[in-house]
């Protein structure tokens, strides 16, 4: 285990739910912190009676959802203005950006829901959704909450049932999450296919 992860886990044991909230919130805002490992570890600590699994799930959910909302609103209110000021004009006016933006607008449900499972991609989609005025907050919130619910429940329940065997299984859990993400993508593809028929 890396010394940085050990450092974060120490703080998780010392400050419990407050540390879990801070790590989950900041990680969901694109700050590189081991949020998956923290959530799995906190759930494993809950299985040993050190924390409560219900509070762990609630804290992680609130932290992730509030970080998603923060990213969305910051991008909607200040996003373009700030990005233009700090030298992102070329990127914002590029063909690549407009292609990515139109993909997210056309497939907003799938992109918001699925990206909750893929670390750093989620916060980027939050920002892009906020920048694009065509995605309503209601829609963003609905798919964001659904995605976060599946993400938090799968990680916390895996950590809880693995107990003190969690350390060796963190990578496998993340792999499983990716498989779930792929299944969700398949679900949306099947849905689109049925709609066309």
């Amino acid at each position, binding site marked *: 285990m890396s010394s940085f992860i050990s450092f974060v886990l120490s703080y998780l044991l010392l400050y419990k739910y407050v540390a879990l909230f801070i790590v989950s919130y900041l990680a969901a805002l694109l700050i590189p912190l081991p949020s998956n490992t923290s959530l799995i570890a906190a759930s494993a600590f809950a299985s*040993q009676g050190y924390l409560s699994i219900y509070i762990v799930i609630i804290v992680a959910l609130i932290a992730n959802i509030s970080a998603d909302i923060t990213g969305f609103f910051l991008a909607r209110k200040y996003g373009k203005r700030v990005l233009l000021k700090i030298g992102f004009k070329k990127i914002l006016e590029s063909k690549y950006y407009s292609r990515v933006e139109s993909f997210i607008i056309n497939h907003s449900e799938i992109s918001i829901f699925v990206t909750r499972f893929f670390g750093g991609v989620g916060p980027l989609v939050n920002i892009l959704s906020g920048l694009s005025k065509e995605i309503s907050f209601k829609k963003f919130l609905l798919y964001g909450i659904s995605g976060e619910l599946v993400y938090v429940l*799968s990680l916390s*329940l895996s950590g809880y049932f693995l107990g*003190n*065997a969690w350390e060796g299984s963190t990578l496998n859990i993340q792999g*499983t999450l990716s498989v779930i993400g792929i299944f969700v993508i398949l679900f949306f593809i099947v849905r689109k296919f049925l709609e066309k028929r």
Partner: protein
Amino acid sequence: MTLLTKRILFTFIVIIFLFITVSFVKKQKNERFSFPSKIDRHRSLNTQDLSYISAWMTFDYLNKVFNLPFSYLKDSLFIQDQKYPFITIKQYVKRNNLDVDIFVEKIKDSIRKFEKASPPPSIHE
């Protein structure tokens, strides 16, 4: 797409999700697997789990998960730090210029001694 088809597809994806999670956990930890009906039944650690102890853990955590009395480790390891038990092993070792590995071994020995003196009740009792 009708509402019914949407609901069927949604149920299908939820079932797949649950199946993957359950089969993954079962595969990873067959002997310790327990269903959510046991969600409030915590599993305390014992001498077989001593290899789990790491330097990033706090004394408070070790006391709780190994069912040790509050001042047991403090007394048996002659800890005089005022932050006990809310201090990690690593922090304590650093403050007192000790060797981490040797100190972790001492903790393991203390827990072994405690369990020998007061063995946990058998599962079959």
